[in-house]
């Protein structure tokens, strides 16, 4: 579906809802009857991006699956803050097994449903970046290569937050974590390390791979909806800031996620069977400083004098993404919304 | 070889006996020297140790003859069946042959027969036919059935034919009293 383009709408499709859009075009989150699959009372930190991303994604999947959804969860913040005995925040059938096996457990659920002929029920697995790109990677790759009928959602906040902010395979360069401290000749996480899981997923040539962000709800919901309808192994990598681990003002969770998109550091795209088929263009390109500076984990780059060399290296990464994914809107002045195409 | 042991077990089973077959446990690697054992008895078999004092010994690959001590446990009244196109005398087993009852040692070109009958150089079936003829512990009919059960279809029939051929060949050499010496009394 392509978001309708009505340029003179007050807020187009940038806000969660928009009373001027026809109801079908509003987000799931804008609906009074949204499921709130991850409900109030969970123990996530103030401004938790993962709590937000999880509700966004699962609510959308619930709608797309007509509320026939089962979720499997890897160990991690999401699991801990949502299900400490005696209270659960989940409204859906939900299973937590281990840190490293969520993809396999989900594959098992899917297999059981298939054996029982329950094609109506859809299966999602979800985990943080640690559970996905590191300890759960083997099982995830198995899920991909077997093309099991599971939608895997990775909530990427770039470190092991539940254990107190240690480096993961998706911690960005120069970021400070407890295991990549901001000291020494090249403070923070080393450049040239880490892995790009969406690309790895694409290398498995699975039916669908996408990146999404809590800062672009329409885009995220469109992708989750599409993915939920497809069969086989599907992967969505969702960018979720962590106020605690990134040391930023909790109120800035979405703003920072937006800056990650607008700098080009987190490209939004879709791939089918290993090929990129769509991307969401940057609306207002900004330099990486704007993204880095509000975050304590990059504070060491903004001393006196600022570390222009490192900032430049990060800018280079952003520019390469913009180049690779063709993230700038065309010159013809066509409005941003026209390109938000999830056809 | 493992297959051969299994075929004997099946045949024995078809003749209404208890049977047990198992390999000398090794990793499933083709070509490695392998031993396989078979027990048959009128009583249920509980014993799980390897057969150390066989009543019959089939040697499928004569090249092993002088590499290892194959005959250590072979009972004095035991049977020996060798898969070879050579004459006994050429094999330098005279002492051994001397130790065993007359007519308890036979050679048969099982591989050639298999090749002729089945087109494949796998002598298992043929050798079993020989064992049946030599010892009389299992009937040719049971051997045929066992082969048919393990290898349904054409291959089975061809192998059964090979077995029958060797059976007849050896049977013709057996003195009348032979093949009655049943080991079943002390099945170990």
């Amino acid at each position, binding site marked *: 579906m392509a978001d309708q383009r009505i340029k003179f709408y007050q807020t187009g499709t940038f806000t969660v809802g928009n009373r001027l859009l026809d109801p079908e075009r509003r987000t799931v989150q804008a609906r009074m009857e949204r499921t709130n699959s991850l409900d109030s009372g969970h123990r996530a930190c103030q401004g938790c991006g993962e709590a937000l991303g999880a509700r966004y994604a699962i609510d959308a999947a619930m709608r797309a699956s007509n*509320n*026939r*959804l*089962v979720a*499997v969860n890897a160990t991690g913040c999401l699991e801990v803050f949502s*299900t400490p*005995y*005696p209270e*659960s925040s*989940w409204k*859906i*059938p*939900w*299973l*937590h*097994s*281990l840190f*490293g*096996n969520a993809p*396999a*457990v*989900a594959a*098992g*659920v899917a*297999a*059981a449903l*298939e*054996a*029982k*002929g329950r094609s109506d*029920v859809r299966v999602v697995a979800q985990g943080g970046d640690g559970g996905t790109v590191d300890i759960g990677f*083997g*099982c995830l*790759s*198995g899920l991909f290569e*077997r093309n*099991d009928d599971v939608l895997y959602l990775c909530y990427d906040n770039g470190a092991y937050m539940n254990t107190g902010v240690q480096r993961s395979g998706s911690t960005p360069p120069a970021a400070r974590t407890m295991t990549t401290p901001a000291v020494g000749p090249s403070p923070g996480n080393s450049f040239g390390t880490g892995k790009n899981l969406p690309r790895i997923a694409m290398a498995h040539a699975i039916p669908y791979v996408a990146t999404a962000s809590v800062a672009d709800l329409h885009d995220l919901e469109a992708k989750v909806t599409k993915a939920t309808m497809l069969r086989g192994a599907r992967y969505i990598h969702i960018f979720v800031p962590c106020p605690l681990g990134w040391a930023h003002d909790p109120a800035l969770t979405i703003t920072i996620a937006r800056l990650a998109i607008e700098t080009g550091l987190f490209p939004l795209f879709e791939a089918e069977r290993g090929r990129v088929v769509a991307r969401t263009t940057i609306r207002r390109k900004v330099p990486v400083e704007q993204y880095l500076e509000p975050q304590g984990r990059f504070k060491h780059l903004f001393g006196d004098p600022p570390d222009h060399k490192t900032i430049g290296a990060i800018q280079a990464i952003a520019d390469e993404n913009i180049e690779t994914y063709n993230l700038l809107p065309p010159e013809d002045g066509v409005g941003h919304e026209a390109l938000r195409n999830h056809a | 070889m493992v297959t051969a042991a*299994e075929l004997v*077990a099946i045949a024995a089973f078809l003749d209404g006996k*208890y049977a*047990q*077959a*198992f*390999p*000398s*446990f090794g*990793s499933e690697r083709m070509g*490695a*020297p*392998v*031993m396989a054992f078979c027990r048959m008895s009128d009583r249920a*078999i*509980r*014993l*799980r*140790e*390897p057969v*150390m004092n066989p009543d019959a010994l089939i040697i499928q690959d004569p090249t092993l003859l002088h590499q*290892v001590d*194959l005959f250590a446990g072979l009972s004095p009244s035991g049977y020996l069946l060798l898969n070879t196109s050579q004459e006994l005398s050429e094999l330098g087993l005279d002492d051994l042959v001397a130790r065993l009852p007359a007519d308890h040692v036979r050679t048969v070109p099982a591989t050639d027969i298999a090749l002729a009958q089945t087109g494949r150089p796998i002598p298992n079936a043929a050798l079993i036919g020989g064992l049946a003829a030599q010892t009389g512990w299992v009937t040719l009919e049971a051997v045929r059935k066992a082969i048919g059960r393990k290898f349904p279809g054409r291959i089975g029939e061809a192998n059964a034919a090979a077995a029958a051929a060797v059976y007849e060949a050896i049977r013709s050499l057996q003195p009348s009293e032979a093949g009655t010496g049943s080991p079943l009394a002390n099945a170990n």
Partner: protein
Amino acid sequence: MAAAVALCRPEVISCYPITPQTHIVERLSEMVRKGEIGSASGGCRYINAESEFGALSILIGASAAGARAYTATASQGLLFMTEAVYNASGLGLPIVMTIGNRAIGAPINIWNDHSDSMALRDAGWIQLHAESNQEAVDLHIQAFRLAEALGCPVMVCMDGFVLTHAYEPVDLPTQAQVDAYLPPYEPIQLLDPDDPMTIGAMVGPEAFAEVRYLAHHTQLRALEEIATLKAEFLRQFGRESGGLTECYRTGDAETILVALGSVNGTIRDVVDEMRDAGVPVGSLKIGAYRPFPVGAVREALHPCKRAIVVEKDLAPGKGGIVSSDVKMALRGLPVIVQTVIAGLGGRSITKASLIRMINEARAGKLDEPHFLDLDWDVIRTELARRRQRRRAGPTAEHVLRQVNAVASKVV
């Protein structure tokens, strides 16, 4: 074995190849492809996992989603799935897993002993040991019933090669018989959109101990359940199979050999032979190692003078594992319990060795723990060599060089 599992109508099977269970799952995958496994719900899915850890994890999901789930593994594979093994029991999922008991490296060794299942004896699974292939067949049928009745996973342990590769006639029950004995799986908890629940919550100090006690309680319930199931099995199949323990000529026995698994067959032959020679020996087979049948063992052994535990495992620095359990069962009784470590890494346990050992024990000459058929020359040389040079190099290699094992040598 595959046929037996198929009779139990599993709905999800997930495996990873490892000797010596591979051929079982190979056959199962073939049967699934041919559609020969008709589960209650109709279908059966076979998943080639990316590891044993993945295989059991897949079954955790499948079981939680209401499917009857099965896998098989051994040795390193069992250890590789350890985390999931604990998790499956913690979540109360009635998965059935065949263990082709095998040693654990290094040195890598593919042959039989009980090191693998022993390593996970406290993982909260029920552990049943089969003496023969016939019993292995029967135990699988009982295992699913037991697991699903208690909400607790079950390992069916059968000795690698000794049973898994032995070829012997087995009486395979009919589908109708099995269906009559094993009803379709009725989950206690289920991932169901119509009745959502949260499975696998985080439990803190306030409730964890209680959760663990309940796991213990489940195992205690299993003690009764196993006995009941054996009786019922006898009624429906006309065959003695399974159960907690099995006594053989222990009535007036002065010495009783205690063991798990296939070696019990050899032991019974030994018992008969020695009885024929007038020696009052008997045999106690432990069928269920977890839960450990303290009562039944105590009941069986309390009249005898000497219990010799023949076990295919070793707790280095301590000795026997099963013998400790037996000692616990006999606490307060004047029964001598001796430990015989035997059959490690596939070494044959022969009647001769057992008889020799029993006679030494009766003569009070058996060391404790006793290592059956241990080649002391090798040990002495190796120890001496080590004393000479600190960096003595790999032990296994030197040992092999000395024993120069060849295919024909019966070890």
